[in-house]
């Protein structure tokens, strides 16, 4: 199937320019050139809006034609020019010579079709194989991507699979016809670290067997360090620099690349802050929560989401809750927020019980605990101005409208936005700015506890760093306690005083960040740390760590005192 000669690159993009349609259409991608050889992985790195996804969609012929057009350049796949190729030709090339996997495995599969049928469809469209042969090929590829019990998976629907399993299905679908080129667009961004590591390993193994050329799109430098042979850095639609992995990470020639690498938070824990305050802002004592008790017709499966969780947090400090999906960290946040009632256990805010409250006392308690959510694109009402959004909670708690709006403007300044931002609507802001707005909204009622649920996970690293700084600054000014829920250990290391590691509803470990991140005695914590991509590389200093993970004791050594 692969038509590439050893010398010629599988994918060769030259001076690619992409514009918005229309007379004075803005240029989104300007003269981008890159090439990927057989068996090679090129990581295309950039922040959102850099044009990295446009490049991949243009290659697949999947650009939204109504809005965008290719303004110049060429895209050659195994020597064949794709620019201007007929729709029919492009359809024939997809999955046979070039395949693509996407960021969101949860939504990339058709939810109402069986997994087996979805993979088989590729064979149905592109081959003459009979039913039995097709089935055999599907079983074979499902086994190759290490899915347990391929026969059961074939009959399953996507919602019965985990995110990691779905991404394996996507990989199976993409590679079943052994294409010469695989385009992977942030394929592990939505996955847990351990799952991410497994999926990266799988991609690499399959690549080795088949000599697939991989164009790997990511914003995560850790992933780059794990998988790339070469790196291409894209910024604002233009190529910044290209080079070998070692060359770009250890000797970046351009300022932009240096800044990008410097923004990557390290796995070194922050220096511990003095633990001064006497009382606790938040106390959790023996929280239990079990889901899934069904009626007589249900399947009766129970999930222990929280199993005897006890934690506490002092004012002005940050406690990180770290764990994979399904570890119970989001349930914990929901219980603290009083959005979910624990089956048993006690929650206290500044010494006051918060469980079993109703009516006015519950409303009062809500004021004292506020939340910042993960996705700033969905957590703000798109039809309400930013000022009204921030002012809403104070108004609900009795502040006059004019006063609340004035407060909203002050808060916008506090979170680093202009006063007149209050009059605008959320869609006029970037993701990072929206998260600033969400923080302003949360602190408008001066809570004792701020719950941040994956609050920076959806942001680019450079923006992430700024928002984390904002959290610290707000905390220093207000003395608010922050419960910071994250799956990203680098983020946890950067902002948390203490870290609690959760797994399967249980508390694996809880202690000062330095102890948990550098000297954990728990196997699970050490595995989690080892799985963090690029944990052997000190990005901000452009060099590898002296001692490689999983021996984490070396990590804290350079630079800061722990």
């Amino acid at each position: 199937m692969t038509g590439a000669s050893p010398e010629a690159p599988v994918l060769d993009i030259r001076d690619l320019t992409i514009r918005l349609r229309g007379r004075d259409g803005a240029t989104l991608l300007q003269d981008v050139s890159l090439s990927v050889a057989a068996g090679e992985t090129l990581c295309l790195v950039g922040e959102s809006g850099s044009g990295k996804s446009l490049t991949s969609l243009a290659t697949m012929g999947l650009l939204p034609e109504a809005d965008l057009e290719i303004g110049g350049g060429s895209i050659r796949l195994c020597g064949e020019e794709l620019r201007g190729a007929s729709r029919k030709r492009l359809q024939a090339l997809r999955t046979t010579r070039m395949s693509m996997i996407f960021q969101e495995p949860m939504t990339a599969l058709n939810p109402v079709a069986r997994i087996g049928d979805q993979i088989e469809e590729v064979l149905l469209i592109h081959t003459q194989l009979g039913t039995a042969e097709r089935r055999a090929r599907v079983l074979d590829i499902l086994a190759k991507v290490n899915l347990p019990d391929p026969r059961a998976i074939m009959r399953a629907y996507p919602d019965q699979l985990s995110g990691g399993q779905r991404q394996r299905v996507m990989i199976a679908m993409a590679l079943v016809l052994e294409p010469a080129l695989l385009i992977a667009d942030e394929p592990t961004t939505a996955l847990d670290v351990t799952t991410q590591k497994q999926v990266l390993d799988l991609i690499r193994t399959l690549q080795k067997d088949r000599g697939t050329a991989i164009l790997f799109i990511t914003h995560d430098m850790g992933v780059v360090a794990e998988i790339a042979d070469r790196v291409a850095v894209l910024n604002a639609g233009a190529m910044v620099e290209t080079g070998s992995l070692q060359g770009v990470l250890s000797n970046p020639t351009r300022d932009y690349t240096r800044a990008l690498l410097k923004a990557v938070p390290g796995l070194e824990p922050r220096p511990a802050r003095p633990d001064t305050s006497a009382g606790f802002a938040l106390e959790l004592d023996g929280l239990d929560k079990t889901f899934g008790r069904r009626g007589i017709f249900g399947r009766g499966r129970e999930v222990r989401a929280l199993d005897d969780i006890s934690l506490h947090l002092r004012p002005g400090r940050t406690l990180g809750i770290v764990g994979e999906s399904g570890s119970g960290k989001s349930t914990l946040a929901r219980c603290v927020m009083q959005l979910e009632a624990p089956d048993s256990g006690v929650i206290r805010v500044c010494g006051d019980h918060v469980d079993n409250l109703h009516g006015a006392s519950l409303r009062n308690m809500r004021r004292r605990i506020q939340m910042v959510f993960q996705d700033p694109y969905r957590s703000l009402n798109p039809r309400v101005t930013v000022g009204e959004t921030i002012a809403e909670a104070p108004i609900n708690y009795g502040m006059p409208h004019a006063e609340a709006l004035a407060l909203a403007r002050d808060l916008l300044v506090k979170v680093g936005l202009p006063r007149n931002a209050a009059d605008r609507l959320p869609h006029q802001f970037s993701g990072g700015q929206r998260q600033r707005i969400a923080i302003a909204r949360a602190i408008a009622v001066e809570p004792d506890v701020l719950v941040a649920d994956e609050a920076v996970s959806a942001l680019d690293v450079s923006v992430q760093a700024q928002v984390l700084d904002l959290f610290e600054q707000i905390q220093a000014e207000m003395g608010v306690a922050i419960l910071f829920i994250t799956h990203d250990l680098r983020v946890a290391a950067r902002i948390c005083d203490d870290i609690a590691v959760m797994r399967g509803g249980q508390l694996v470990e809880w202690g000062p960040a330095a102890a948990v991140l550098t000297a954990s005695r728990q196997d699970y914590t050490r595995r989690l740390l080892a799985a963090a991509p690029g944990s052997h590389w000190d990005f901000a200093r452009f060099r590898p760590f002296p001692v490689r993970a999983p021996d984490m004791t070396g990590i804290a050594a350079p630079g800061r005192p722990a």
Partner: protein
Amino acid sequence: MPVIFYVLKRILATVPVMAFVAIFVFLLLRLTPGDPAVAIAGDQATEEQLRQIRAALSLDQPLLVQFVTWIQQIVRLDFGKSLISGLPVSELIAQRLEPTLSIALVTISMSVLVAVPLGVLTAWKQGSWIDRGAVAFSVLGFSIPVFVIAYMLIQLFAIDLRWLPVQGFAPLSRGLGPFLSHAILPSVVLSVIYVALIARMTRAAMLDVIHEDFVRTARAKGCTEPRVLFRHALRNAAIPILTVVGTGLALLISGVVVTESVFNLPGLGRLTIDAVMARDYPVIQAMILVTSAVYVLINLLIDLAYSLFDPRIKY
């Protein structure tokens, strides 16, 4: 089997609804101000006529006895006798069922066959001339009264061109040709509004899913556009479409009065209207019950059909 449990559970859930309707229908007559017999027979009735009506409707019995008797009767599908024709009401309804069901089914099938592809096409070509044309058509379809379209079509196809009969109904037992030639005009007339409705709903539902990631995945697999649209997108858009189709069918069975009048069809709509005009209470009561049962049954079927299209909807 959980599926059977689910179906049984859903059927059981319809019992309270139907019981409520039955009580309402029963009280309808009994709570009429004044003497219901007078209301039925009119001011000119003799004492003998009133006595007969009271006996026929057992209005001379205590309320509770009346109710128990009545429930026993309707459980056996015995709705009493028409005050006008003297025929059993269940027989009257059975006679009228075929024309109504025929027209309803032909109408809804035609509407779906036209509207769903139209909706898919307009969603795919959103903003194009075909999309705007379809929008204009649906506005027109919603706003022209049914009888205007009906008389226009009769004038054209039955009177000027003489292709089709002007009025009347031919049962399927007389052959497919006569059946269709009688059924086609009323069905086309009725389907105008359903085509508009279902096409709009299909378009909206398709627009919701057409930008989803799995549609992009289908394209990345090399699927042709029709395959992307009909096999991947449409099935995910099926649920709201199904709801509109089901509700449409229920409306068609219970309320196509105008069309039945214009085309002189001996259907349930005409039966209801005639009964209301003649104050034929047993027939009115039975029609309310039957109509409610149709709605409940069709909603049940829609609910069950959801899970056919979307396996995530669990029993």
